[in-house]
């Protein structure tokens, strides 16, 4: 049974049809690359799966049971974690506070529940070390470099036991070493049976970790094939429109 199944998903913003009639399915533990030109509709697709947008038409099924993902909160509860392209960080909180936002570690004192600051900071520092990122858990996100911010967004997905992780250009701003770590991470997720959808403009990365690649062009799906049966050249042609479909 498919973990995620999209059927004829369409999304319009006024006159712009960002997605038209997109259908595909993801199996548990599968790593799928999603590629396409700028404005092809990749992020819009991610936002529909993670419950930010509701599709104009079409439907979505997760884990066999749910016909709708109403809100990002619901997506999280269903086991869908997302690294958003715009990172979705609160600038005035520290890295650790951002990572734990919405699922803080608490200590029960009588009827009250207080935050466990140092436990959260320690855990965040651990996550950064795991990603080999030079990011300090107690620093405010406001003053962080582009790559440090991205590391925070990636670290966030590591907190819970997700079933599906959507990564919208997770490696855009991070440095060589961390890119390798993120690819490593994806490998480990796969082994743990967690499905990943990776959006990236970096062809080698997609070919290094994905089993399948879906190519979008101007809102429609133009290809959905196993990496083994494709090549970077073919995918590039599909992205630019030099090749119509595959």
């Amino acid at each position, binding site marked *: 049974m498919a973990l995620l199944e999209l059927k004829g998903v369409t999304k319009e913003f006024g006159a712009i049809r960002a997605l038209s009639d997109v259908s595909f399915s993801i199996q548990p533990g599968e790593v799928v690359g999603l590629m396409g030109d700028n404005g092809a509709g990749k992020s819009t697709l991610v936002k529909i799966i*993670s419950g*930010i947008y509701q599709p104009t038409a079409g439907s979505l099924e997760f884990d066999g049971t749910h016909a709708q993902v109403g*809100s*990002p*909160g619901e997506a*999280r*509860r269903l086991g869908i974690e*997302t690294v*958003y392209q715009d990172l*979705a*960080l*609160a*600038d*005035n*909180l*520290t890295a650790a*506070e*951002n990572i734990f*936002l*919405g*699922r*803080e570690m*608490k200590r029960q004192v009588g009827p*009250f*529940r*207080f*935050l466990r*600051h*140092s436990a959260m*900071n*320690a855990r965040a*520092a651990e996550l*950064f*070390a795991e990603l080999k990122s*030079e990011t*300090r*858990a*107690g*620093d*405010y996100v406001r003053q962080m470099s582009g790559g440090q911010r991205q590391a925070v967004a990636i670290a*966030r997905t590591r907190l819970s036991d997700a079933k599906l992780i959507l990564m919208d250009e997770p490696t855009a701003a991070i440095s060589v070493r961390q890119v390798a770590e993120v690819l490593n991470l994806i490998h480990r997720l796969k082994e743990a049976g967690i499905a990943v959808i990776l959006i990236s403009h970096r062809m080698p990365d997609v070919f290094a970790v994905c089993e399948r690649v879906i190519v979008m062009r101007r809102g429609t799906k133009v290809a959905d094939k196993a990496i083994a049966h494709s090549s970077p050249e073919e995918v590039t042609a599909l992205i630019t429109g030099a090749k119509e479909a595959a």
Partner: protein
Amino acid sequence: MAQTHAQTFTNVGQTRFWQHGFLASQSAYVLAALIVLIVIMSMLSPNFLTGGNISNITRNFSFIAIATLGMTLVIITGGIDLSVGSTIALSATVTSLVMNALLGANFYPFPGSALLISLVAGLGSAALVGLFNGLAIAKLKLSPFVTTLGTLSMVRGLVYVATQGRGTFPAGPDKDMFLAITAGKLFDVLPVSFLYLIICAVVMWVALNHTAWGKHVFAIGSNENAGRLTGVNVDRVKIQVYVLCSLAAGVNGIIISGWLGSAPANLATAYELTIIAAAVIGGANLAGGVGGAAGAIIGCILIEVIRNGLVLARVDPYWQQTLVGAIIVAAVLVDRLRSSRNG
């Protein structure tokens, strides 16, 4: 919060003590300005630092300080609440109308019952105003400014309708108890209203800094979207914040009316600007994401010290207004020092 961690970086030094925490906040700099002001005022008027006057000042700023705490919460989420002045009048009026009604109906099952019912009614009416604001802002996504300007006018209008413009007076068997818990003094010096303020401020400080809810309030103010995307129930937190703000205003309304022994229909007219100003002077940022309990109180003290000090210094009343404005601007100017020092 931000503890320094085990991990070390060669290019990260030790932050100096004045570069982080309270000492690096706007509140601290405004506190410095406040202390300077107090020194000046006490030189201008020998009566300024007398026990009686300090007790007056303490009571006067407690009148708006609890509402300012609530306002600070709203401002941290990036909102604004212009209806606090009207809500103060509403809770005062409802409380005293219910006390009178219970007296009229001769309903007094047990000692203190009249007081209890009236307080619940007064605070409940305030909470309803907050609920209305919160629902309109969080669910209907209306602009906080327009919504609360609307309730400012609606609630004041309702107070006039209910009283026909006449003031009402707390009355009935529990009147003395009412006065004791609102206008009384602990050990004959400390106004109880100040005690309530301290309790509220401590609770707020803990809630903001040591609970998940507090982090959500800050997150919403800085990036509402990020909050929503990480599964924070943004709408609920917003509604809570507006309800708390109105409740705080309600508490202040009851305290003021206890001290006045009356609930005039025009009570607290135009207080909203003073309350917002106190919050902003104390470091809350109207753009959202910044603010705190200590700052709110410091802001209130500053405003009250200016007002009281100028009267005691016998400054020409027409000049007082001019000076109040000038000193407020000067006080926040001090905060510029901070930015220029911390780069």
